[in-house]
């Protein structure tokens, strides 16, 4: 066996809740435990037992293991032990078996909502990949998708911990009817993320800072035969310029989005509420997405407290062709859904057009007319899309 490494995993500090901090120091003596738990009376014994079993199963039998438990759930304990073992034994392939899923399907694997290329993606809720407590109930808030983020919300030193936590969260937690997304890291690190998550129950991978079709091709190779979908994020001038090539790079692509924080940094401009500095990029992303038959999805609105600002931002996004927006807080979801919803008048008019079209079809007429007005085919197509969207939103609200 290679020599054992001193290491730590998990989180500690006064504000940490629902997590654990583990620190390992190699030594010749039989594995010694320094254990403290906020929940000593209630779960002290079961926590100790679980951690000891995992350490023993993976051959960590000597040295000292320090544990500071702040109420970590078993799936978190497993994740933290997984990354600790990887570091201590210098073997990133080590995986701890996950807790059984909270919502199992008939074969015992996690229940996954069905997904398809053009499902509703109005809202996607970002969840920091190394913070368990926000993951627990994320699905209950009713976003169309949750994103377990391994990239910008995770400190460089915590990347390995985050991958393990995201893997265990995917296997164990119930995200309800949400599409399960993971944002991987950029480039090589992202490829490693995907390899570590191989087989984990997820629908879609958000690929950050994509600049070329080749990057998508490389990831296509990694995911192999799986049904995993892609959403490239364009966050640099080069990426935006190559939008169409990126959008057409893989049949896995379902949507194109952009990251405005990084893009404005790349452009050397200040991000403003009006967004004039990135207006062209937004249009480029929308045009490329539509040309490639993908959804165009807007960036996030970062100021959680400003609900009116969010509302204005979504109204504008919808008006120029975006179909969804990222959320950094659950309270943004409802506003985003409300603003992407077509108005009652719009829906009524669309239904009338669709009805007129169906009637014309039934009568074998080549021309569709509503009252005295002739309806062009693109108008019919738009009306059909709008009716379908309205119906989907109604059924999504029921599940909210």
């Amino acid at each position: 066996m290679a020599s054992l490494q001193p290491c730590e995993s998990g989180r500690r500090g006064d504000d940490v809740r629902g997590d654990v901090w583990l620190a390992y120091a190699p030594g010749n003596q039989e594995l010694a435990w320094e254990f403290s738990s906020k929940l000593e009376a209630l779960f002290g014994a079961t926590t100790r037992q679980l951690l000891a079993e995992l350490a023993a199963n993976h051959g960590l039998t000597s040295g000292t293991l320090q544990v500071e438990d702040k109420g970590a759930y078993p799936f978190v304990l497993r994740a933290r032990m997984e990354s600790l073992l990887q570091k201590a034994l210098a073997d990133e392939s080590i995986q701890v078996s996950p807790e059984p899923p909270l919502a199992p399907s008939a074969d015992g694997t996690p229940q996954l909502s069905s997904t398809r290329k053009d499902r509703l993606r109005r809202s996607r809720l970002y969840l920091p990949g190394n913070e368990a407590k926000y993951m627990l109930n994320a699905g209950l808030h009713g976003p169309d998708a949750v994103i377990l983020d391994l990239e910008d919300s995770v400190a460089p030193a915590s990347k390995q911990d985050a991958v393990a936590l995201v893997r265990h969260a995917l296997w164990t937690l119930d995200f309800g009817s949400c599409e399960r997304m993971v944002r991987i890291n950029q480039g090589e690190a992202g490829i490693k993320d995907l390899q570590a998550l191989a087989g984990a129950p997820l629908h879609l991978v958000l690929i950050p800072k994509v600049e070329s079709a080749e990057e998508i091709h490389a990831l296509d190779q990694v995911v192999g035969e799986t049904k995993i979908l892609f959403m490239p994020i364009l966050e640099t001038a080069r990426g935006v310029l190559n939008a169409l090539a990126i959008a057409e790079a893989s049949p896995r692509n379902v949507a194109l989005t952009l990251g405005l924080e990084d893009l404005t940094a790349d452009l050397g401009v200040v991000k403003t509420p009006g967004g004039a500095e990135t207006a062209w990029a937004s249009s480029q992303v929308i045009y490329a997405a539509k040309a490639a038959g993908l959804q165009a999805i807007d960036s996030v609105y970062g100021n959680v407290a400003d609900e009116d600002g969010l509302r204005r931002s979504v109204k504008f996004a919808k008006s120029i062709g975006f179909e969804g927006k990222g959320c950094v807080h659950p309270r943004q979801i409802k506003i985003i859904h409300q603003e992407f919803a077509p108005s009652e008048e719009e829906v009524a008019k669309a239904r009338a057009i669709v009805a007129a079209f169906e009637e014309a079809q039934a009568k074998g007429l080549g021309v569709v007319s509503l009252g005295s007005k002739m309806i062009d085919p693109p108008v019919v197509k738009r009306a059909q899309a709008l009716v379908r969207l309205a119906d989907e939103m109604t059924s999504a609200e029921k599940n909210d």
Partner: protein
Amino acid sequence: MTEPLQTKAGRLVPAEVNGRDVIPYAGVGGHRPQGNQAAPPIRSCADYPADGDKRVHAEGDMVAKLKVALAHAGLKDGMTISTHHHFRNGDLVANAVFDAAKALGVKDLRWFPSASFPCHAPLLAYLEDGTIHHIEGSMNGPLGDFCSQGKMRGMGVLRSHGGRWQAVQDGEVHIDIAVLAAPTADAFGNATGDRGPSACGLLGFGLVDSQYADHAIVVTDNLVPFPCLPWQIQGQNIDQVVEVDKVGIPEKIVSGTTRVTKSPDRLLIAEHIAKFVRDVGIMKPGFSFQAGAGGITLAFAMYLKEYMKEAGVAASFVRGGSNQYLVEMLEEGLTPVILDGQTFDLEGVRSMRENSGHQHTSPFTSYNFHGKGNFSSMIDVVVLGATEVDVHFNANVVTHSDGRLLHGIGGWQNCLFSRCTILAVPSVRDRIPVILDEVTTMVGPGELIDVIATEQGLCINPARTDLIEAARGSQVPILNIHDLKSRIDQLCGGPPAKPKLGDEFVAAIQWVDGTTIDAVRRVKG
């Protein structure tokens, strides 16, 4: 120690508490005591100043003045001193009272507050040195911990706000000296809480003390010429008036339990409840509701207000715990009346002073079970918190799952008598499941609890078939409580271990009728 008694709910309680025989809980409405109420001694105007000036003439700080007043009141070893908690964590009077008692060298006092807060932690020293023998009243924070560890010489007795009135009125607790902090008072002893530099709203919790104590002292930092208008406390019940620099810090009325939650999961619970109240038809013109202290229940009021506006529905009255949200409802015409038992923020204080529809109440009108009715059973829906609930819908508000006594009952037990009682709880708190097979301490019986609302959805008491029927078609997820419990247990890695408790009882939990519904045992280690 004599053998414990068993309550009708199967809980074991001590046969005797601080020298009094215990009547075990006999079920809801199962205990009907006979006889007459207690009464204070007969007094004569001949013994009080004809000009109505009852001011204590003494120099120095509050402690020095209280020393004179308490000596004049005849403070002796073993007496019972009461205080109220309208300043919540900003109270300055209770600590000063016991500083004065200590200075007088008096021992073995019983403190009978309407509630205690972390600001009363300095009184631990007096529990340790024998000045205070024990506390009968809700114990929050450090005092609760002290009691849990079995360090208090007497047994703690926790009563609801209504139960405190009942205990005094029925003669179970005799108050020797009541010391009442008053933000405004005159020299005769008329007092109000709604104005003055330290305005805290109302003084309803101190009303029973003023009426039944042998001796009542008003302490004020805003002495006004007679008559103090309005008067919430009548000078005819007051023996002495002490003028001091400051009686309390009203800004500290606001605390964690009186602020709206920011947690998305807890906001979701509040939203579920408001939707439920709307969807099952409770929210209809002329309805009434009460939202207790606690971040979730306050947020419920915020959501409900939006739905009421959407539907054009106004209430006929709301009960508080008033706060800015209830005040907005009053001022926007969504309710003509707030029946207020205590103010939870300074907007509530302002409104009580300015709005004629903002009526101060007392535990007598709102909660006392041994009266000719009270308000709590007339309310359509009440939303409360809990530390734990069980699959039988029993609930706990005083202890944590590790057995420690950390919270008071407040008006919680009294409110259970509403037409629909909803407990708002997260299903789990940092791996501690909130839904158990059996609560650690039974404070409220399941037969009075209609709905348990969590972020996952709502569990309706199977006995409430009407609500189950009415909730069909609601947007709110309705769950079976056993299914929810299994799911939470799975997330947490099984149900938690039972806390390690000693045999000895450290506190009795009284039911609204003076019976003992459960008891708290010493926490080991």
